[in-house]
């Protein structure tokens, strides 16, 4: 078992999948010869040829639409959108086509595609390289939505996504590509080579879609998080000394409601965190589910910590990013409520 960055783990997932199944096709902008602007597909064209891994014209609608057509033929495309912020021209193809193909044709045609895209902020990318648009996809019936938080999960989840019979939107929190970033932006980031979740098994394995992981067991309060915010929550728990149980959701749809209910029933308190803007964010869905399923166990109102409802700013990145101080404050307030 080797230690890998998240980029290497994601590349490994595609490599393993392409090696096992010649129906798996990888394409996107700068994905072929160069291997992607984040290098997630580096070497795949050289290894599998230009018919299996190639550069696409800059047209996200075209990338997703072509993938749907290939899936209808019987292939299993795993395509890259260069940044989640660029997915919107492809949104119609995802929402009106990929998500509904199985339903409207009653299974006559299906759409086993994966649309990968780097998401989230923390790199001074401004409003066009920082967004977390997961809620725009969880709101659409027929899609699955995955957000890994570490290399080991990223590989297993991506292989599961590629093998899944339905369309999967696969977000890659780009600030986690090289290490578990906890929001302390002035401190050096621990590389994945020094983190146990950077240990990535060789060959084929899957992490099932719909299973959360408990990253930190605790008894005081449940924190529901995914992606980068898992590490921000860990830092907040450590700094406040609050015994938080941190659940890494890993997939937002399907959602592991059992894990959420079991934890909140035990702790009686819940803080929901995400980097995406707050209003109509996925946190609203989580808070509602907790209220519906755990109301009589709750000892405090459910708290939400999220990105402010503004476009992602450039200079004020760290005022915007919901870092450990804000999450810690929510933990303290929830304990005191």
């Amino acid at each position, binding site marked *: 078992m080797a230690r890998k960055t998240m980029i290497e783990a994601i590349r490994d997932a595609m490599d393993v999948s392409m090696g096992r199944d010649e129906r798996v096709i990888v394409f996107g*902008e*700068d994905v072929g*010869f160069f291997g992607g602007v984040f290098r997630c597909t580096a070497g795949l064209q050289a290894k599998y040829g230009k018919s299996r891994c190639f550069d696409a014209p*800059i047209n996200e609608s075209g990338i997703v639409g072509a993938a749907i057509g290939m899936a209808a033929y019987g292939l299993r495309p795993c395509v890259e959108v260069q940044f989640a912020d660029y997915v919107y021209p492809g949104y119609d193809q995802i929402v009106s086509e990929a998500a509904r193909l199985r339903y409207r044709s009653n299974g006559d045609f299906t759409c086993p595609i994966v649309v990968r895209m780097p998401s989230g902020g923390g790199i001074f990318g401004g409003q066009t390289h920082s967004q977390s648009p997961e809620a725009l996809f969880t709101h659409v019936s027929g899609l699955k939505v995955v957000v890994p938080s570490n290399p080991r999960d990223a590989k297993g989840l991506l292989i599961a996504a590629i093998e899944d019979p339905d369309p999967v939107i696969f977000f890659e929190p780009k600030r986690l590509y090289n290490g578990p970033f906890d929001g302390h932006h002035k401190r050096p980031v621990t590389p994945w080579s020094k983190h146990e979740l950077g240990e990535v098994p060789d060959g084929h394995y899957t992490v099932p879609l719909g299973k959360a992981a408990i990253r930190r067991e605790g008894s005081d309060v449940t924190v529901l998080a995914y992606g980068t915010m898992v590490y921000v929550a860990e830092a907040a728990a450590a700094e406040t000394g609050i015994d938080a149980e941190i659940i890494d959701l890993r997939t937002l749809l399907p959602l592991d409601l059992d894990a959420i209910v079991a934890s909140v029933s035990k702790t009686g308190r819940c803080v929901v965190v995400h980097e995406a803007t*707050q209003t109509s964010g996925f946190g609203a869905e989580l808070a509602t589910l907790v209220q519906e399923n755990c109301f009589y166990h709750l000892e405090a109102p459910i708290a939400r910590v999220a990105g*402010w409802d503004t476009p992602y700013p*450039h200079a*004020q990145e760290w005022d915007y990013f919901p870092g450990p101080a804000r999450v810690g404050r929510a933990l303290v307030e929830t304990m005191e409520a």
Partner: protein
Amino acid sequence: MTDTGMLRFHVPEPEVRPGGAPDFSNVPIPRAGSVPRPEIDVDPREIRDLAFSIIRVLNRAGEAVGPWAGLLSDEELLEGLRHMMTLRAFDARMQMAQRQGKTSFYMQHLGEEAVSCAFRKALAPGDMNFPTYRQAGLLIAGGYPMVTMMNQIYSNEADPLKGRQLPIMYSSKEHGFFSISGNLATQYIQAVGWAMASAISGDNRIAVGWIGDGSTAESDFHAALVFASTYKAPVVLNVVNNQWAISTFQGIARGGSGTFAARGLGFGIPALRVDGNDYLAVHAVAKWAIERARRNLGPTLIEHVTYRAGAHSTSDDPSAYRPKAESDAWPLGDPVIRLKNHLIRLGVWSEERHAQAEAEILDTVIAAQKQAEEHGTLHSGNKPSTRDMFEGVYEQMPPHLRRQRQQAGV
């Protein structure tokens, strides 16, 4: 049952990859002065061949030749040279500032200075550009203060955009420069919409759209062409073909079409190709297209044939996907050197004066930089406030944002 054989999948490839010798022998370069200049009200069907040639004015000897020459005075040419040199010096300083951590990101114009600098001089006050991230010459040649550009790049306290937008995504209505979004091709159709509005309003101002070779693949490019064609919008649609879209060579966006200009033909839009490294040619073609638009003769598509001599951005390393010496082999040369040689040939410029101007321009740029840095840089000095982050989402701040601003304690 069939004798067609097995289907094969086709993926276009550039002529040369790293390690190979640069080769542009596949790029036909017509002689300077050889392409005719049609009447302004020409029927687009009569000039279809202009979409496959290259309009050039400056020849190898530094002379301005042919029917597109003769529009600019010596003073105007000297000013043009100064604008291009200023943009180049500005880029070099800001590229270095990014490397020094004074900002997060930068995109330079190296090799493409003529396109935006020359085009700007053909416009009239009130006309509106919808630029991409590589047309800062529109601002430099339009007299926009360099210090303000730097304040934006530094996201400092004097940044007119309050630190909200990525470096170089300028905005200035006053200078005919629409806010750059950073998404690709989205603003091409907006240029057409602005032009339609000008026509609806009986105005005489025109709009200018800008796009790169790679982004012509986006659906919004095609939306712009069909709207421009249908409504005969007073718009000039520029395609800056600098050969590379990050690592992707222009053939991926162009496909089986001979040129990007040819995209206009199916829409009945007159389409011209111009030597983008020839200040005089860019200016002459811009003048022609702008006049057509202003005389209610409709849209024109211009493909500027140029070469991105630098990296795509400070996040890019081109040596991974193209030969290192490729830019030296580019057959259309360097726009600054070509105009310099022309002015020397005219007897109004010299190597000595050029070197002196270079030094003066650098001093001016450094002085502007000092002034900008007094207002702070991205990571030091004075910054836009956290309060600014919550402003301007709406004209009136809704209650939920007001509450969030209170939570943020600002």
